């Protein structure tokens, strides 16, 4: 039962990874990369490693997405300033 759950999570993770690389818009790719971290955190909990699950949920899904979004915002603002000049 748990095995089927892990395989289902794995298939969703692989689909999210492929979508993150082949998405049209960059913002969809960034959110997809955050979803991978969240699902990895659930797998760590099933593998009986709660410290790693906590760290991966906080860093892999929250802080990594925030850092990507900050950089993306900065690039878009620079691009808009470049077009206005």
């Amino acid at each position, binding site marked *: 039962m748990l*095995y089927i759950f*892990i*395989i289902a999570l*794995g298939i969703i*993770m*692989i689909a999210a*990874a*492929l979508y*993150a*690389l082949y998405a049209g818009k*960059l913002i969809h*790719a*960034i959110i997809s*990369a955050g979803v*991978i*971290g969240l699902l*990895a955190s659930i*797998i*760590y909990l099933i*593998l*009986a*490693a*709660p*410290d*790693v699950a906590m*760290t*991966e949920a906080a*860093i*892999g899904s929250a*802080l*990594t997405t925030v*850092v*990507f979004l*900050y*950089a*993306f915002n*900065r*690039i878009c603002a*620079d*691009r808009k300033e*470049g077009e206005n000049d």
Partner: protein
Amino acid sequence: MTAVSIIGSILIIIGLWGMLTKKNIVKIIIGFSIIDTGIHLIIVSVGYIRGGTAPILDSTVDRARVVDPLPSALVLTAIVIGLAITALMLVYAVQLHRKRGSLDITAYKELKC
């Protein structure tokens, strides 16, 4: 657990493929982040004992059925370092975009600026 190892290996393959073929710099960095997640999954899955519980002892835990604590400790520091390196790479990408105006990696072909 072997299933998690195989999932981690497939993530590493997807991330490697993305880093080698994509032209957008931010997608290359996303590929690096995927490789990182795959590596951590493989390391933690090696330490799993069949039927084991978390390595936190109290009066009800059987000390012989505890999961290996060493891979968890290694992956703990590796996740934090992965975040710091990803942030550093993104700052490089922002500065490259400021200098040249494009996020395409084929626009940076010359060695001299």
